[in-house]
C-alpha cells in the first residue's frame, strides 16, 4: 500500500513539474499553486450501510382489540441494545400464523423474509439480519407472550437472579420470574451507560452491583461512582447507582440523559403498600453539577414507586422519564420513603401508595397502567449531583396489592 502511494505521489510530482514548466513557457507568470488537490474532487462512492438493526416491528391482525390489550401494542420500537422483542397478547390469541413487518436498517436483509407468516405458538422465532454491505449480522428473537394472570397479591423483588450481560460480560443485569417461572429482564440500570464512560471497569466497579450479604440471600448494592475522564469530558462527572423497573435507552445516554431512563412496565393490579429493607451511607464529598464541593451538604438516596396511566386521552403511549417520573400528570399513585436516612443496619421501610386519581379497573386489567419501582444512591444523581461513594443497599422489596371486588 505504501509503495503504491509513493509511486502515485512521484507521478503527481512529475505532472506538477511538467505543468509548471508549460505554464511558465506560455505565460511566464507564476501563480498560486493549489495544494488542496488531495481534498477536493476525489470523494469516493458512499459506502454501503454496515448496520443490521431491526428498528421497529409492527404486527397487523384482523381484530387487534381481540388480540392485544392496547391498540398501541401492535407496534414496538426496538432499542439498539435489544435482541429480544416481546409482544404481550391476550391469553386466547391465536399465534400460529402471524406476519410481523420489520423496519430494518436501510438496505439490510432478513431471514426469514420480512412480513412472512410464521408460527409463534411454539415459542420465539429467530430473525437474522444482514447489513447492506454483507459484513455484519444480528440475531433477534421475536416473542408473542400470552399475558399470565398474576395470582399473588404480593409482588416480590428479592434480587436473587442476576447475571453478567451476555455479550460484553462487563456488568450485571437483574431478572424477575414471570408467572410461568421464567426469568424476564424487568430491571434496568445505568450500567450500560457506565460501560461507555469506563470501558476498563470490572463488573464490581459498576454503579449497580449484586450484594452477597443481603437481608436474605442476595440484595442489590447501588453506589455513586466517578465516571472518569470521559464523564468529565461530557460534563457527567458521576453516575449514581440506580435500579428501576423499565428500560435504559443507551442512545440517549450522552445527549438527553434524563430521557435514557424509561420508567415503568404494564401492571395489572392495584398496589397499596411498598415495603422492603435498606442500608444507606452518604459519600464524603458532595459536589454540584460543575464538580464544585458543596461544604456541609450530605448526600441522600431515594426509594419510591409510581403507578401511572400509560396512555393519554388521545390514546398515545405515555412513558415516564427522568425529568417527570414523579410529576407527570398521568401519575395515579406514588409511594415514597420520606424518612430515608443514613443507617448501617438493615432498616425496614413500609410506605402506602398515595392515590391522587381513581383507578379504572377495566383499564387496569387491560394493561393500561404501568408501575415503576426506583432506587437511587443519590437523590439528584439524574442531574449528576451527589457524592461519590454514596451507597444504598436494598433487599426483600414487596409491592402489596389488594384485589378489588
Amino acid at each position, binding site marked *: 500500500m505504501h509503495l503504491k502511494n509513493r509511486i502515485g505521489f512521484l507521478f503527481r510530482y512529475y505532472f506538477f513539474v511538467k505543468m509548471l514548466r508549460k505554464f511558465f513557457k506560455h505565460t511566464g507568470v507564476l501563480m498560486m499553486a493549489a495544494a488542496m488537490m488531495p481534498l477536493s474532487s476525489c470523494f469516493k462512492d458512499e459506502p454501503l450501510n454496515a448496520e443490521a438493526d431491526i428498528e421497529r416491528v409492527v404486527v397487523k391482525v384482523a381484530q387487534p382489540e381481540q388480540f392485544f390489550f392496547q391498540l398501541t401494542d401492535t407496534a414496538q420500537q426496538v432499542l439498539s441494545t435489544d435482541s429480544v422483542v416481546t409482544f404481550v397478547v391476550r391469553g386466547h390469541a391465536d399465534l400460529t400464523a402471524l406476519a410481523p413487518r420489520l423496519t430494518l436498517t436501510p438496505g439490510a436483509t432478513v431471514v426469514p423474509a420480512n412480513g412472512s407468516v410464521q408460527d409463534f405458538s411454539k415459542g420465539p422465532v429467530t430473525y437474522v439480519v444482514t447489513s447492506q454491505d454483507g459484513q455484519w449480522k444480528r440475531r433477534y428473537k421475536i416473542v408473542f407472550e400470552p399475558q399470565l394472570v398474576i395470582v399473588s397479591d404480593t409482588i416480590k423483588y428479592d434480587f436473587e437472579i442476576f447475571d453478567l450481560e451476555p455479550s460484553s460480560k462487563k456488568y450485571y443485569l437483574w431478572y424477575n420470574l414471570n408467572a410461568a417461572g421464567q426469568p424476564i429482564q424487568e430491571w434496568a440500570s445505568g450500567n450500560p451507560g457506565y460501560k461507555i464512560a469506563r470501558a476498563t471497569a470490572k463488573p464490581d466497579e459498576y454503579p449497580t452491583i449484586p450484594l452477597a450479604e443481603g437481608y436474605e440471600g442476595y440484595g442489590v448494592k447501588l453506589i455513586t461512582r466517578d465516571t472518569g*475522564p*470521559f464523564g468529565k469530558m461530557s460534563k457527567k462527572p458521576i453516575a449514581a447507582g440506580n435500579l428501576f423497573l423499565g428500560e435504559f435507552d443507551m442512545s440517549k445516554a450522552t445527549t438527553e440523559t434524563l430521557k435514557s431512563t424509561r420508567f415503568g412496565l404494564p401492571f395489572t393490579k392495584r398496589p397499596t403498600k411498598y415495603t422492603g429493607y435498606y442500608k444507606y451511607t452518604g459519600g464524603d464529598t458532595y459536589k454540584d453539577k460543575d464538580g464544585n464541593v458543596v461544604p456541609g451538604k450530605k448526600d441522600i438516596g431515594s426509594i419510591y414507586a409510581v403507578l401511572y396511566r400509560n396512555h393519554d386521552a388521545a390514546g398515545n403511549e405515555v412513558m415516564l422519564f427522568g425529568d417527570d417520573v414523579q410529576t407527570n400528570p398521568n401519575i395515579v399513585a406514588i409511594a415514597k420513603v420520606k424518612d430515608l436516612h443514613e443507617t448501617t443496619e438493615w432498616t425496614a421501610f413500609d410506605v402506602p401508595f398515595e392515590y391522587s386519581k381513581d383507578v379504572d379497573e377495566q383499564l387496569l386489567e387491560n394493561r393500561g397502567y404501568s408501575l415503576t419501582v426506583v432506587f437511587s444512591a443519590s437523590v439528584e444523581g439524574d442531574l449528576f449531583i451527589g457524592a461519590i461513594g454514596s451507597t444504598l443497599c436494598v433487599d426483600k422489596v414487596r409491592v402489596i396489592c389488594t384485589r378489588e371486588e
Partner: protein
Amino acid sequence: MKKTIISAILVLTALAAHASKADSTFLGMGFRFEGRVGYNIGGTAPMGMPATIRALNRFSLTPNITFGVGAYKPIYGRWGAKVGITFENKGMDMDARVKNYHMEIVKGGEVLAGVFTGNVVTRVTQWMFTVPLQVTCDVGKVRLRCGPYFSYLTGRTFDGWAYDGYLRVDDPTGAKVMLGHDEGERGEYDFSDSMRRLQIGMGIGADWYFMKKFGVWADLNMGFHGVHKSDFHTIEQTLYPIYGAVGITYKIR
C-alpha cells in the same frame, strides 16, 4: 508558543542581517542570500480519500505563516543548489461529514472505540523549523527548485470532536450512542501527544523575480510519512502533511 515564535523571528532576522553584511564569498563558497515570507495552504490528509469521508463541511484558514532565510549557490550553468531555514505553521481546521468512520478515543486510560456516522472537526497546528535542501534550475526569470526537507516541530496539537451523529460502540452491531452538538454532548479527542517531532518530506517550488530584488514564490511540500508516530493506529488512515505555500522573497544580496 509565543516565545518560540518571537525567538524564531529574532534568530532569523539576525541571520538575515548577518547575511546582508557578509560578502559574496561567505565561507568562500559564493552564496547568495534571500529572505522570504509566505503562507501555507493545505492539510494533513490521507493519500487518496477513504470512502468513509463523505464531504467537507468547512475548511477554515489557520495562521499558517512561513518565514525564513535561504542561501543559493550557482553550480553549473542554469543549475544550482539552495539551503534554508524556515519557521512555519502547517495548521488545519476542517469539518468533515463521515459515514462508518472508525474512531478510537483514549482518555486517561479509558478507551471508547466504535464506528461513527456524523460530523468530525479536526484542528491541527504544527509550528516547526524546516530545513529544505534543494537542487535548482533557472528557466528565464524563474528558478525551479526540488529537494527534500527536514522539519522539527516545536508546537503541535491535533484535536477536535465528533458531533451531530451517532456512534456504534465497538462495531456496527454495538449499542447506538447519539452524539450532540454542544460541548458535553459531543465526543472530544486529542491526539497531540502522538504526533511526530521530526518530519521528513519532499518539496518542489519555483521563484520568479519580477523585479531586481523582489520575487514571488510557490512551493508544494509533501511528507514521506504521517504526522503521527508510526505506532499510532487510532485514526484509520495515515495522515500526511500535504501543503502548498505562496509568498514573496527578497534578495538580501
